[in-house]
């Protein structure tokens, strides 16, 4: 094969892969703006925003989205606070079991959260926490903590210690040092962790599906599911419009932190050899 032919073949392959990946999106994008949408992605010219208008009611999408914002937002804020505090001694002090602790955190990130939900459910039932949004947020925070502490510590390690020395000379304790010096300097890192946790919980389906009791508490992830699991009477155009409205914030936030997240895919920095 000549160079030109190889190049053309590679581009063709990439084009085919891209088209294949686009396929499943087609229907959602088309159906959302077609007044008579069905399950088939029909390339018609009829265009209307009726589907969006139809789902933009309090019960259909506004309340579920507010629930999503409350659950994901509270989890993100709480995770950042707790992980930020925990990362400080892990980053600044020579602790005896620091390495063990960090490795345990990394180990925990590998455990299947899906499996943990059975005992959590049993526990919530026994202690009358079933259906409690705050209790679920605490669980979601705990499940986000291992990775968040890990990320937070790495960002904190990037803040030079000598910047804190002035604060110590002035008699500031660790808390002041953390909030007045380290925190502001690692603001971008804090934002990355917060958005990472937020987007993760935004898409979380299983935990609220299992731990919350009434539809009024459910986030959009569960509402979408109930929307399209009711076979036969589905307004497909509305389902598509709902999907777009629900997905948009996650995509927007992802784009905002994309640059930072991409760099975390290099294992090279973290591994030897």
């Amino acid at each position, binding site marked *: 094969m000549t160079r030109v032919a190889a190049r053309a073949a*590679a*581009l063709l*392959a*990439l084009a085919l*892969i*891209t088209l294949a*990946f*686009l*396929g*499943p*999106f*087609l229907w*959602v994008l088309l159906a959302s703006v077609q007044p008579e949408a069905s*399950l088939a*992605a029909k390339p018609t010219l009829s265009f209307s925003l009726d589907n969006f208008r139809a789902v933009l009611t309090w019960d259909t999408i506004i309340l579920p989205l507010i629930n999503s914002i409350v659950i994901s937002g509270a989890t993100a804020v709480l995770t950042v606070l707790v992980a930020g*505090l*925990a990362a400080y*001694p*892990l980053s600044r*002090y*020579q*602790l005896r079991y620091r*390495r063990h602790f960090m490795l345990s955190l990394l*180990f*925990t990130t*590998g*455990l*299947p959260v*899906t*499996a943990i939900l*059975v*005992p*959590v*459910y049993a526990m919530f*039932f026994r202690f009358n926490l079933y259906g409690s949004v705050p209790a679920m947020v*605490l*669980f979601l925070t705990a499940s986000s*903590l*291992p990775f968040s502490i890990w990320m937070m510590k790495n960002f904190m*390690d*990037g803040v030079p*210690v000598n910047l*804190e020395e002035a604060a110590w000379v002035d008699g500031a304790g660790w808390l002041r040092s953390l909030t007045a010096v380290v925190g502001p300097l690692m603001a971008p890192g804090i934002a990355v962790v917060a958005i990472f946790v937020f987007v993760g919980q*935004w898409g979380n389906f*299983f935990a609220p599906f*299992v731990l919350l009791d009434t539809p009024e508490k459910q986030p959009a*992830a569960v509402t979408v*599911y109930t929307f399209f699991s009711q076979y036969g009477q589905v307004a497909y155009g509305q389902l598509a419009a709902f*999907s777009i409205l*629900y997905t948009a914030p*996650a995509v927007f936030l992802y784009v905002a932190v994309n640059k930072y997240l991409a760099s975390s*895919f*290099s*294992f*090279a*920095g*973290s*591994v*030897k*050899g």
Partner: protein
Amino acid sequence: MTIVTAPPPPVTSRPVRGSSRRGAMRWLLPLGPALVLLALFLAGPILWSVYIAFTNETLTGSASVHSRFVGVANFVKLFGDPNFLNSFLLTFVFVIGSAVIGQNTLGLIIALLQRGRGRVTRSVVNGVVIAAWVVPEVVAAACWFSFLAEEGTLNRVLGVSQEWLYTAPMLAVILANIWRGTAFSMLVYSAALSEVPADLVEAAAVDGAGPGRRLLHITLPLIRRSIMANLMLITLQTLASFGLIYALTGGGPGTASQTTPLYMYEQAFRYFEIGYGSAIALVMLVIGALFSLVYLRLIKVEDA
């Protein structure tokens, strides 16, 4: 994870490791909330699942009030339960098909094809592949539900009429999961390939090695670690996968696509067999823990 080497500990007026109680307070206090949450909501439930997996706990009926210790009965039942064994086999097929073969290989191929391409090509391909990864799993399921429907896009393109979710449910969920997860492997491999020294590959080309040999003898050995780490991570993610399959096929038709997480869901949350469900959860946790340990060994964390 880009891990910056830790700065030296503070060596100014304060002692590094205080021998006084004040020293202990300095690290215990900020670490406290995290330790409490992790103990109550992660370690606690896991330990409790070890306990209830040995009881006949249910949420309804008499065993909900008087659950009692039944020894290894749940586990004996588990390994003689054809539905569990079926789910286990399906999980294995799902992980091998969608993660190990699908996502891993496709991610590597895309990353390789993208090398040396222009910025526009790269961002278009990246954008589309990553979009499939960013959408919430329930929306991904809705996309595939319509894509595979009898009236759906796939049948139109292929010119056939198939109710894929009924005739080939495992193939359907495997394809959907490849679509959803390939971006992760692609990103891992793009990062790994960017660290492969170009002159090494060029030198091999000068020596007359074709593209296939260069890939097999130079590139792949150099990114071996990334491949192994990636395989472990995507296996862990796929093992526990629930939402996509549940929303797409519900495990059906019958039990044709009921992987272990879905079987666990059915036992614990539909039949309220909490003890039995916990036994299944425990088996999943142990398998996850084994993979997680292998992963830890593989990446050899430099600074923790």
